């Protein structure tokens, strides 16, 4: 970063809000603040938009993962707390989110030839649910004008046999399903109808309460059993529709036992997503050119509303008032000092522990959210990216595959999700597909092992391993692996700290629901604003919303 071209000094040097990092949460905040009339400076140390939500070419992705996986050495000799004015400066350190990064290329020639035609997500697998809060927010803010979507054509449930079965998630899908028995079809459709009638139940209509309060508070998995749903259907509902991670049948390892109420909410999101846009094929859509388009769309919206953007600009230190200990501003890598009322930071930005000792209590209080928390028994998410030749399922390009807990191997504690995307989404060259894998894990080894197992189920390694001779026959049909990345990402929650707030890292979910909801909540705390993008809703977007809102390409 030392050979960055020198930046001209920023003018003005005083803002209502400085946002560092261009991830989804930061970008939503920047757009919301700008549109409510605040002056905003939005910085990002990287040369691209999106931070941990970016979509990158293969070389860029490789270098980003590597540079974020080990703590970089202190960038420059620590500048002594400057006593020039009434300010004290506190150095910032970079926290790395990624570990166990391993990137392997099996066909460098081809990949190099096409390397710039890839738009590979850092936070995959991730899709947008049509009824997702992120879509609402895009419509509200007008960010929808900058993104186009396509449908995920199909979703499957897989197991160790290698067979992929369609997820019967709609009336037509249940009708067509070949893997369900007639009675299962009957039970599943009845269950969907029950959920639908539960949803349709308006507050003033007390006559049609279908699910009792007691049931609503009971574990969802027990409720499904009570509805006489057989294990295979329960598993489809829990992991491929409600998109749960933990094995709901295993009390010891399940860190999040879902209540029926939450389960119904999750199904509701799915069902509403199915019916929201008539030109969408199902519940799930994906932005053309990758996930990076979403934060970028909010950034563009912010820019239209007057937000100032500077990329390739890390901040090196925070400036605090010597006497009160309150936040004043930041020092940029260029050396310039910029002042603001409030500050929103990327989850990677921390305060070095060594610099804390010399600070007063008030100063420490200001920096509270930037102090790294002790990571005890904290879950992580293992992610994998594969570039393959061919497709895991013929006739289908964009598809979601879920391996419920225990479906691949007995010790599999969490569901593994796989998202295959094709060239139609402009994420890779034609005849190739990009596959994203993810699973929650307690430690890196456990996560990587689970991902490799799912990969082995779907993909053929180019060099046949010596001990896999037996599988040769079935291997032939599987697509060939060209490139692979494996990494484990820490899950960092966002934190509201009054003046300085820290945003969350990409979460473990398949969609943006929680990311966006927490961003909205955090923003409202920070800015004290009642509603995001309030003014936008009134005029310019109403017509678009009536017509279906977002652009979904049908081919």
């Amino acid at each position, binding site marked *: 970063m030392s050979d960055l071209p020198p930046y001209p000094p920023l003018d003005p040097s005083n803002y209502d809000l400085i946002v560092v990092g261009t991830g989804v949460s930061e970008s939503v905040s920047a757009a919301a603040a700008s549109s409510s009339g605040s002056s905003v400076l939005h910085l990002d140390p990287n040369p691209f938009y999106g931070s941990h939500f970016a979509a990158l070419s293969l070389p860029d992705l490789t270098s980003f993962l590597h540079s974020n996986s080990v703590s970089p050495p202190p960038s420059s000799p620590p500048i002594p707390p400057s006593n020039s004015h009434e300010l004290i400066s506190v150095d910032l350190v970079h926290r790395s989110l990624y570990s166990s990064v391993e990137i392997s290329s099996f066909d460098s020639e081809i990949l190099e030839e096409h390397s710039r035609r890839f738009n590979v997500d850092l936070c995959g697998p991730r899709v947008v649910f049509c009824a997702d809060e992120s879509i609402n927010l895009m419509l509200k803010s007008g960010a929808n004008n900058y993104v186009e979507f396509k449908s995920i054509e199909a979703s499957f449930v897989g197991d160790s046999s290698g067979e992929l079965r369609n997820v019967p998630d709609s009336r037509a899908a249940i*009708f067509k399903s070949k893997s369900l028995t007639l*009675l299962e*079809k009957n039970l599943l459709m009845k269950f969907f109808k029950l959920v639908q009638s539960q949803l349709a139940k308006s507050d003033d209509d007390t006559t049609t309460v279908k699910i009792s309060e007691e049931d609503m508070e009971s574990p969802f998995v027990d409720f499904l059993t009570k509805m006489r749903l057989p294990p295979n259907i329960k598993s489809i509902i829990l992991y491929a529709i409600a998109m749960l991670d933990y094995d709901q049948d295993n009390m010891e390892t399940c860190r999040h036992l879902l209540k029926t109420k939450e389960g119904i909410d999750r199904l509701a999101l799915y069902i509403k997503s199915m019916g929201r846009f008539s030109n969408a094929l199902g519940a799930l859509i994906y932005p053309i050119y990758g996930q990076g388009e979403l934060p970028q769309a909010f950034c563009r919206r912010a820019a239209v509303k007057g937000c100032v953007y500077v990329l390739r600009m890390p901040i090196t230190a925070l400036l605090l008032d010597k006497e009160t200990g309150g936040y004043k501003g930041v020092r940029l890598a260029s050396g310039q000092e910029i002042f603001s009322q409030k500050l929103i930071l990327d989850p990677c930005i921390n305060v070095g522990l060594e610099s804390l000792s010399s600070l007063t209590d008030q100063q420490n209080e200001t920096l509270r959210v930037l102090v790294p928390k002790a990571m005890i028994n904290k879950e992580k998410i293992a992610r994998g990216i594969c570039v393959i030749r061919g497709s895991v399922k013929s006739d289908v390009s964009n598809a979601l595959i879920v391996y419920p807990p225990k479906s691949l191997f007995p010790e599999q504690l969490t569901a593994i999700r796989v998202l295959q995307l094709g060239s139609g989404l402009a994420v890779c060259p034609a005849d190739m597909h990009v596959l994203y894998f993810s699973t929650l894990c307690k430690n890196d080894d456990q996560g990587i092992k689970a991902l490799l197992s799912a990969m082995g189920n779907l993909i053929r390694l180019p060099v046949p391993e010596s001990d896999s001779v037996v599988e040769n026959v079935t291997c032939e049909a599987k697509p060939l692996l060209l490139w692979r990345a494996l990494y484990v990402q820490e899950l960092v929650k966002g934190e509201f700290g009054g003046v300085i707030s820290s945003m969350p890292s990409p979460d473990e979910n398949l969609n943006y629901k929680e990311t966006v909801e927490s961003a909205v909540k955090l923003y409202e705390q920070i800015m004290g604003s009642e509603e995001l993008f309030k003014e936008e809703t009134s005029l310019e977007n109403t017509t678009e919303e009536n017509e279906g809102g977002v652009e979904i390409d049908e081919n």
Partner: protein
Amino acid sequence: MHGRKRNAASKPEEDAASAAEALELRLLQSQFMSNHHQKIYTKEAIQLSAKLQEINPEAYTAWNYRKLAVEYNLDSADPSLVNSILDKELEVVENALKRNLKSYGAWYHRKWVLSKGQCSSLDKELQLLNKYQKLDDEIKKNLVLRNFHLWNYRRFVVELTKTSEQDELQHTTDMINDNFSNYSAWHNRSVLLSSLVAKKADGFMPKETIRREFDYVHNAIFTEEDDQSGWFYYLWLLDQTVKMETPLRASPWPSDGSNIILSGPGCFNGSSSKFTTYCSESGSFPLILYFDQAVSGVSSSTVTIDSELKSNEDLVWEPVPEKNSQVSCVWVARLKFDRTEPVKVKVSLGKSRGIVSSTGCNLITPYEFVFTVHIDDTVGESQEGIISWTDGFDSWDAQSSKDLNSLITLDQLEVDTGFEWRKQAIKIEIEQFRKLPDSKFGKLNLAKLLMAEETMISDDDAVKGVHYKEILQLYNDLMALDSWHDQYYKDEHSVALLRKVTSSTESLTRHLFRNRNMNSIVCLRLNNLTLSRIAALEKLLFVQMLDLSHNELHSAEGLEAMQLLCCLNLSHNRIKSFSALHSLRHLKQLRVLDVSHNHIGCKHPVDTTRYLCSSSFSNSGETGRKVPSKYRDTYLVLRDLMKLKQFDIRGNDLIAGEEFSSFVRQVVPTLVWLDGNKLAS
């Protein structure tokens, strides 16, 4: 309608806009009419009509004008311009359809254009249809799922393009996979399959086709058990399974091997013989043929009588109930007898072809039956006493009797083809629907399937009758489950119950008695059974005395088949009018009729049975007698009962009083007992 939202009340500015639109339309209309009358077919004039059509696709005159214009222009046009003229027409239609996808005129015009030889663009037509059929807007979807215009036009185009029926079948599959509530697609599927099966197309043999379709439609039924589209298709399939190629079956009276005694006029001497006694006053007795399907062509040339009885060569076979009708289930001929010694009578049918069922089934295998007639010429006292429905009944063991009727399959040859797999198919279906125990439709369907299986196994003494208990229970459950359709279930319950009662001699015996007071004639007592409908008549042709009291009957429909009936008790039922008793006028032997304690003449003058009954009042209108209009229905029933001696109509809603009594006596001069009172002669 069909889930369409009601539009909000219009605002004043909208009213103004629509008024302006109306004005414009009127102006267009008058211009167009003047063009039309003056036969102006210029470009501008045609343009004008196109504009009119775009606004109002229902303007028939405008479509006709366009046809004239096209004809006119085609005559004078360069052959190279023909296509462009016709293309223009298709375009106008398309614009009109944008306004209304269900416009008769527009679709008809499109057909007309195609018939003008515009065949180059037929593929485009199918594409257009596919586009319409895939409209995804919710409102339009409803317009498409229930749009017979689209499907009719599709069939028309398909015929022109010679698209294979297999391809069209695939199209219905695609449409159904997309949304299986597409009734039109299911219907088209049934049309296509019928044709493919009839042609014996490759891969469409009935057995495989029906199995495949059952498996397919199960998906719809099990996925959403209250969606009607699938059920309609299912019932069609079931029909194909049960009915296809089913041979004609018949039941005669007197039955094969039976003995009957003909007794003289008024002879009630209490014979204790096992034989059926038939009291004949006119020197003849009826010969009855009951078919399970309506047939035509029953005559002295198709049914031959072989006996020593003279003057029966040219028997007149009459269909019941309608003399003028050509098809009927029940045919009657009157056999004259002139002997005193026992006579064997052999009746043969099918020797010469001619008896054809309404479904086209031709009776080709000869069938014959023989019975013996004994004459009892002791002249007894003519019966004058009142007949009681409460006493005088002796139980009768009919086990050894050969008088009981049974359906006989006439065409033995055809029985074997496909019968086994059909039975098997029904068995599989029964197994499937036992899995849907809580569903209303599941129960109803199971009951229907069990009934179908009963019909199929009715020849097999070992297993027949096994399902009735379950069927009756299912209908009882349904009545409780779905009170909206209570009456329908009750009717089906009655049918099943009657089939159960008549399924074996043993069960029928429990209801059979001989009446001491009536020359020991056979009496069938079906009282107190909650019957709401009469069925299984083919098994009951021999019955002369029938007690149906204390049931829930609304009508006497069907009883006309029981030509031997002389005593009938319909008291304590739910009959509302004489028109509901209309079928009784065909029972010429009726001497005793009890319709007391019904609701005849009840206050609701709208009598729906009048429209349901097959009787035609216009025919029976030539009365020649002045009948008060309020007694018209009464008159039409009673005037044909030439032998009625005892009539009971007490306890009905309105009819009472001296006036009515004297009217009845006038119409029925033979009457001796009215409402339990002996009439002064």
